[in-house]
């Protein structure tokens, strides 16, 4: 009604009720992700390389977010199937930061444990395994990553890997048997510990962030 509703300055947050949507908006870095600007056109779902395999297209996920269907959203496999190709983000006619929102949903699903009920329940563990290696060595460690993850989730795949591709990788000198450590690992770990503290403070302040 008032003209200020169209003010380009008026922060989007002010227009959003404290809701699941607002939680997501607040937890997404890089400025306003413009989630409530979605007009349900489906450009994202149409563009997504793995869209055909998702339970809900990103568009539908956004509609569910708008409808405050928190559990259903966080249990979905949609964001775990996101391959970070950014097609949706550059094509979105409303400039919604879709890929970033997918990451936010991943973090939420892990933090709140909903991923366990997802059809892609193994997916977070891959990410976490990767993260563990980086926390431990400062760099990624492909062999460790592959074996640990596969042993846990795809034992048969692990055997296949060890005999097939993995062996070939080793033979071609494309895989290390031991991890490489950065020199100043202590420094990195101190930084990451502090980052965690900062994040915790943030969460206590606004709640729900990851």
């Amino acid at each position: 009604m008032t003209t200020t509703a169209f003010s380009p300055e008026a922060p989007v947050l002010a227009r959003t009720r404290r809701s699941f949507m607002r939680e997501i908006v607040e937890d997404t870095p890089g400025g306003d992700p413009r989630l409530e600007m979605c007009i349900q056109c489906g450009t994202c779902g149409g563009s997504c390389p793995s869209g055909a395999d998702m339970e809900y297209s990103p568009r539908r996920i956004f509609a569910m977010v708008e409808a405050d269907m928190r559990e259903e959203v966080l249990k979905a496999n949609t964001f775990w199937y996101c391959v970070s190709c950014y097609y949706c983000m550059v094509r979105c006619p409303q400039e919604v930061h879709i890929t970033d929102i997918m990451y936010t949903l991943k973090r939420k699903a892990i933090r709140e444990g909903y991923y366990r009920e997802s059809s892609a329940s193994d997916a977070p563990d891959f990410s976490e395994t990767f993260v563990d290696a980086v926390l431990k060595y400062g760099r990624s460690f492909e062999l460790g990553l592959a074996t640990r993850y596969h042993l846990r989730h795809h034992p048969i795949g692990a055997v296949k890997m060890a005999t097939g591709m993995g062996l070939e990788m080793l033979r071609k000198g494309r895989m290390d048997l031991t991890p490489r450590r950065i020199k100043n690992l202590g420094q990195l770990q101190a930084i990451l510990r502090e980052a965690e503290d900062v994040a915790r403070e943030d969460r206590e302040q606004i709640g729900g962030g990851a």
Partner: protein
Amino acid sequence: MADKQFEPLIIGFTCNWCSYRAADLAGMSRVKYPPNVRLMRLMCSGRLDPEFVLKALRGGADGVLITGCHPGECHYLEQNYKALRRFLLLRRTLKQFGVEPQRVRLIWASAAEGARLAQEINKMVEEIRALGPLTWRDVISANGDRPLEALPAEEVTA
């Protein structure tokens, strides 16, 4: 008001044909700019008498914004060139009066440049906020103009 941050007061002179319309356009497009600037209309930047600027500074403005049509686009053909020449000589003179050049600015803004006018206003408000208040009243009633008995003890020397 001491707890509030300093908010500069700026008087803006606009040309009826370009910058006043730019201000109209800024309004119509709901472009935001700070309320520190108060605009008034002249028919042309060529109407700007340097006295107006002095009057504004003397009367409490912390800055003066003069706006006109772009060179070559004056509604009255060439009067903005005169405005520019007056502005530059006035700026030199004002410098001798201790008025920083950022406080009196001339910008060109066509009727289509609502957003740009707003941007320039934003910029100017920021710059003057950084410079601090002008308060010419205090400049004139500066120290040393007090009667003898009001002198503080430390100025009384043996």
